[in-house]
């Protein structure tokens, strides 16, 4: 009993400050023990004594701690003191006063940092949206994607999507998942309302909503019976579409929506914010080809509690999915693959984000080096003040703290400004981002981002204030008061200052070189021969509301377009160039070997409208041809008949035979950076016509307005959905939007980096010139000519800048490999770009040093000598 109570009392003594415990702890424990012993045999009194002692220890211990704290604070009120809140506040106020007295220096430093931290903030927002919370679902880390891995023809690893039967099989036999679902982007649909509209749809299986944790706000969820092929067509409205087209009317449930494929009954409304770009959710109805993989159906699943991805993978690998004899051979080598949905979703963003992070990191580094340089340069003018403070008793620690506080005040101001501007710019910055950020997680400033920026600001202040603070405080301590009147040499002449300039320039070289390479690559991309003249070719997108009208409609529209003044020729095609639409299959000539081809359907006049070069044979007539014809592209002709001419031979494709009548030059179908595809053009059949695009070429200078075309397209007869006219240039621009944005953003960052480096160089040089006024005066008094002074100052900065350029080029060679995959026909070591960058940087650096140098040369020697 005594032992336990003593042990507990020993613990209670922890309430006293350590110092006090050291002095009296043992004695107090002895007294307590003795008193407890004295009460032996009187248990109640002992307990009462123990309780009183406990209260006594807590009360006096805490009081003692409070007294100790007050005593320390009293000690620190004097300027030599350690670290209390009060003296830090004093430091901050003093720092702010000093900074306000030098508005030029402060503005440069704060702006520099604001740019750096603003960039970090913006990037953090994007990272947060793209990488940290791309899946706005409950427990996103438990979601996986299921697919199949199989070896390609050349042994490369390929993945395939899943089939409906795979999903049903896993749902029945797998134990690793709490639920599985399937989805497929359903593309655009035409709603035959008045006016007709085009909406985006997505097909999902019955468990999809439950799996991702969404519940319809109105009506019911999809059910397994909805996915049968013979089930009545139903759909769930997207929240935005419901608001837009039905004004949020709850009576919409049970009504029907007329689509080209037939009427569908609306059974529910998706929650707000859930995939805002999807207007209509429909059940997958694919039983007819339920076993076919690779038709766009993706399977996702939620792992059952306590099951890891590896365990799920092991289970699926052990399950054998029964496959029809017809497909068994093709699917023999398919192995199920379980991947984290997070990894799948973020894979596309990672390289882009890494690239951005690299560029922004360099900007921040430049901004920080800049600040360090400015602090050091300014500090060299404060040696006198620091020496005085050291002489009246401020210790080194105290001086370092003061200097660090100032740099943190600076960086905090820069951070606040940076976050503020980032907030203003965020929309613009996101528009500049070379990627589509997932629509479910809009980029926004949030707590995470703000905390990241705040931490970055303070860390930058501490990190890059430390070196100047330590250097200056040491010199402050060493400088005898007697020496303070004398001006010291330039901050530049010290190795530290020169190293800073070199570092800054080196970092800027990397950024500018990266931007330069991207610009050169974009330029090459723009110069690629597309196979047609994008400036004179236009595409009309008009879709009849009733698919049955397609054939008659397009033929009539084509005639009218041809009759327009200024139109040289017009035709039609189902997959317009550059947009990547394709229908891949295989074909063979006269029963020869079959090769892969891309099939397009062309209306007569297309080749003339595109101004494709006829290489061999002839083009089809505009009215009718005696037998089914096919036109080959150059690549297809080479692939199909490598040995000789294909003209006049019979081509078998999609179980039909066509006569080859001509070979034309190729067109970039999937984009300028893609190789020319083996394309072939089959004749347009008015009875089975799909959606087509009318393509026409104008004579030079002719203009066809969108309104004119709209009148034409809607005036043909059947109701149509007219979507506009695009020129070939529009298509190319649309296609190059990502590389263009990436180049634009990197150029912006490169320019920013260059600007920051120059500001830093200019600042340090200007400061050193001010510090060296007396020295310059002496030189000039001894006969130095102004140009000699300028040369001296410029050389002082040019040498470290040259070193920086050399180091930067080395760094560039190492780092630009990261952007290799983004470069088109440009090597990361492109000598022209690197040489250009070096010259640009060199000239800019000399200019930045020349301006303060010239000011120095105008110094009147007699004035300069009087300067103290």
């Amino acid at each position, binding site marked *: 009993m005594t032992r336990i109570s003593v042990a507990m009392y020993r613990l209670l003594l922890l309430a006293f400050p350590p110092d006090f415990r050291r002095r009296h702890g043992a004695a*107090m424990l002895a007294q307590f023990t003795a008193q407890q012993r*004295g009460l032996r045999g009187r248990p109640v009194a002992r307990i009462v004594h123990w309780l009183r002692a406990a209260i006594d*220890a807590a009360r006096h211990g805490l009081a003692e701690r409070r007294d100790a704290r007050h005593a320390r604070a009293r000690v620190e009120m004097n300027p030599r003191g350690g670290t209390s809140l009060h003296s830090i506040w004093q430091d901050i106020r003093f720092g702010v006063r000093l900074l306000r007295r030098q508005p030029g220096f402060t503005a440069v430093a704060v702006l520099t940092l604001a740019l750096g931290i603003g960039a970090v903030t913006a990037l953090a927002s994007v990272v947060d949206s793209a990488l940290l919370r791309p899946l706005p679902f409950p427990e996103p880390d438990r979601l996986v994607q299921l697919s199949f891995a199989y070896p390609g023809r050349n042994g490369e690893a390929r993945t395939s999507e899943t089939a409906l039967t795979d999903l049903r099989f896993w749902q029945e036999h797998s134990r690793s998942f709490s639920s599985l679902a399937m989805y497929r982007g359903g593309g655009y649909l035409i709603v035959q309302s008045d006016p007709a509209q085009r909406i985006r749809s997505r097909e999902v299986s019955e468990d999809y909503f439950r799996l991702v944790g969404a519940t319809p706000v109105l009506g019911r969820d999809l059910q397994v019976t909805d996915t049968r092929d013979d089930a009545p067509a139903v759909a769930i409205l997207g929240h935005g579409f419901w608001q837009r087209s039905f004004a949020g009317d709850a009576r919409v449930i049970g009504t029907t929506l007329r689509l080209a494929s037939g009427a569908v009954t609306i059974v529910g409304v998706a929650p707000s914010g859930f995939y805002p770009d999807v207007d209509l959710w429909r059940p997958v109805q694919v039983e007819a080809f339920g076993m076919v993989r690779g038709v766009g159906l993706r399977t996702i699943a939620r792992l059952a509690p306590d099951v890891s991805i590896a365990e799920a993978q092991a289970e699926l690998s052990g399950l054998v999915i029964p496959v029809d004899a017809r497909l068994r051979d093709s699917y023999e080598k398919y192995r199920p693959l379980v991947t984290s949905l997070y990894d799948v979703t973020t894979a596309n963003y990672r390289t882009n984000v890494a690239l951005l992070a690299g560029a922004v990191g360099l900007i921040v580094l430049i901004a920080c080096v800049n600040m360090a340089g400015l602090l050091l340069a300014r500090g060299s003018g404060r040696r006198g003040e620091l020496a005085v403070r050291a002489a009246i008793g401020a210790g080194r620690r105290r001086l370092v703290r003061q200097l660090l506080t100032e740099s943190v005040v600076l960086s905090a101001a820069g951070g606040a400004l940076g976050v503020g501007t980032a907030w203003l710019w965020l929309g613009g910055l996101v528009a500049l981002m070379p990627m589509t950020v997932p629509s479910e997680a809009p980029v926004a400033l949030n707590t995470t981002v703000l905390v990241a920026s705040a931490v970055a600001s303070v860390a930058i202040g501490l990190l890059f204030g430390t070196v100047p603070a330590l250097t200056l405080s040491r010199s402050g301590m060493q400088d005898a008061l007697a020496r303070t009147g004398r001006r010291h040499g330039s901050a530049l002449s010290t190795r530290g200052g020169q190293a800073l300039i070199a570092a800054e320039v080196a970092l800027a070289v990397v950024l500018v070189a990266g931007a330069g390479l991207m610009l050169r690559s974009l330029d090459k991309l723009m110069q690629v021969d597309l196979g047609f003249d994008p400036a004179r070719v236009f595409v009309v997108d008009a879709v009849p509301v009733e698919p049955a009208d397609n054939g008659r409609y397009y033929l009539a529209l084509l005639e009218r377009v041809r009759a327009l003044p200024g139109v040289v020729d017009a035709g039609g095609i189902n997959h317009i160039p550059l947009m990547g639409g394709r229908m891949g299959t295989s074909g063979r000539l006269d029963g020869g070997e079959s090769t892969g081809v891309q099939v397009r359907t062309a209306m007569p006049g297309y080749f003339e409208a595109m101004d494709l070069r006829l290489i061999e044979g002839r083009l089809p007539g505009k009215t009718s041809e005696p037998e089914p014809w096919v036109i080959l592209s150059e690549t297809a002709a080479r692939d199909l008949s490598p040995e000789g001419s294909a003209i006049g031979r019979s081509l078998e494709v999609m179980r039909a035979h066509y006569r080859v009548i001509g070979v034309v030059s190729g067109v970039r179908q999937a984009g300028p950076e893609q190789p020319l595809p083996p394309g072939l053009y089959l004749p347009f059949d008015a009875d089975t016509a799909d959606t087509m695009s009318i393509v026409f070429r104008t004579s030079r200078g002719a203009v066809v307005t969108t309104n004119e075309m709209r009148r034409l397209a809607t005036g043909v007869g059947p109701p149509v959905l007219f979507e506009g006219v695009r020129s070939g240039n529009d298509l190319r621009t649309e296609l190059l939007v990502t590389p263009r944005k990436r180049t634009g953003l990197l150029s912006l960052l490169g320019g920013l980096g260059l600007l920051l480096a120059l500001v830093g160089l200019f600042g340090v040089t200007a400061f050193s010139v001010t510090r060296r006024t007396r020295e310059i005066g002496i030189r000039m008094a001894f006969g130095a000519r102004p140009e000699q002074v300028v040369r001296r100052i410029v050389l002082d900065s040019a040498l470290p800048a040259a070193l920086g350029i050399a180091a930067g080029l080395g760094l560039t060679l190492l780092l630009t490999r990261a952007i290799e995959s983004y470069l088109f026909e440009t090597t990361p070591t492109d000598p022209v770009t690197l040489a250009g960058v070096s010259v640009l940087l060199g000239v800019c650096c000399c200019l930045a040093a020349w301006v303060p140098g010239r000011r120095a040369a105008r110094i009147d020697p007699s004035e300069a000598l009087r300067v103290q």
Partner: protein
Amino acid sequence: MRRYPRDFLPLKDLGFRILVALADGERYAWSLVQALDDSAGSARLLPGQLYRTLDRLLADGLIEERERPDDHQVPDGKRGAAPSRFFSLTPLGCDVARAETRRLEALVAKSRAGRLLRQRR
């Protein structure tokens, strides 16, 4: 900076009682506890309060402390830790104790002179 006895007045009750207890001579901690505890065995005086007061008196220079004096005889038959810390009054402490006694005396005399005690009778 020199401090005068009046700077310490009025003393807190426990501080005054410690000074009074030490006025008869040096004491070790446990004997001090016993001297201060009015009714023996009740363990009224608790360590926290005692040592905080002792600490304050030491810091103010009213008492001093030393390790076991050579001539001290350890009382036989007592169990517990052998006393190692001895407290005694400093001249300043002595003056302060006297000044406080006089102050209290004056206070009591004034009270007696007034009607307070007479009324009760």
